């Protein structure tokens, strides 16, 4: 049975998952920009067939979501670390994280996905 921790536990799990996801993307990104130096044609093809391809769009949206969540929750953790507050406040802060996430992610996702529908 999974330990039934509170909001903090799930905020932490999401923070870890998005962190690992962003790290994997970074590794991929380092590899592809490395290719531009050794084989520009492959790089161009890679950009055209992968990064700019319609099927990659959802991954781009997922990356945006991961970066956004990781950044907002990171600010939440910094606030908890540097300001003395009763622990119950962390839940309100998480509410703020979710609110800002939705506020920023929806328009972001719209602009990222718009080329697919035009």
């Amino acid at each position: 049975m999974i330990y039934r921790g509170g909001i903090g536990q799930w905020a932490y799990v999401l923070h870890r998952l998005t962190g690992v996801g962003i790290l994997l993307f970074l590794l991929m990104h380092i590899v592809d920009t490395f290719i531009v130096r050794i084989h520009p044609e492959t790089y161009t093809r890679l950009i055209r067939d992968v990064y700019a391809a319609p099927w990659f769009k959802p991954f781009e949206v997922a990356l945006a979501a991961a970066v956004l969540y990781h950044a907002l929750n990171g600010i939440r953790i910094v606030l908890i670390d540097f300001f003395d507050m009763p622990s119950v406040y962390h839940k309100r802060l998480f509410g703020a994280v979710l609110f800002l996430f939705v506020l920023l992610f929806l328009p972001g996702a719209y602009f990222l996905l718009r080329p697919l529908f035009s």
Partner: protein
Amino acid sequence: MKVHFRIRRYDPEKAPKPYWQDFEVEVEPTDRVLDGLHYIKWYQDGTLTFRRSCGHGICGSDAMVINGRNRLACKALVKELGSRIVVEPLRGFRVIKDLVVDMEGFFAKYRAVKPYLITRSPEPEKEWIQSPEDRARFDDTTKCILCAACTTACPSFWANRDFIGPAAIVQAHRFIFDSRDEGAEERLAVLHSRDGVWRCRTVFNCVEACPRGIDVTRAIEEVKRLLLTRKL
């Protein structure tokens, strides 16, 4: 009411692996999980093994995972849990038998933070005087009963058994912020080590698990901030 107990059993002398066993128990809604465990032990299966001492939420013996969350069996009411109750031993400790876990490592960490008053100044004629304000500074962390519910709810501890854990930090906090105490440096040295306070990832499971309502993460954060600012 009829309650279905599902208990994680383990007896290394009988079977090499832990297994689940089910019991049907007739209890009152206002009964505690501990009453159910007693009923099982006294009338159904005498081999069921668990710790309990005072049975009134103050000795800290009967912390266990009840319906997926750390609680004291003597404080968890049946009516708050429903008719299906799942009981497991605390996580992150070696299971000795059934719900009894090996807490030696836990207490070794407790001892490591020197949980007693350390003074160097000449002893006063009567007593060490403390103002009510200074006493209030560490009031929250005096409530700890060392049940280990916080430490065994902590993902950082599950991942790294060397992590000193919330309980030991709470105990250290109780003395570090005591105006009479002069041993803060010794304790902070332990807490500033590789497996000290910095392994805390502010998951807040400890706060939710604490049967004494101690704001554990806040105490840990206070120690972190003290470590950060004292050298500046």
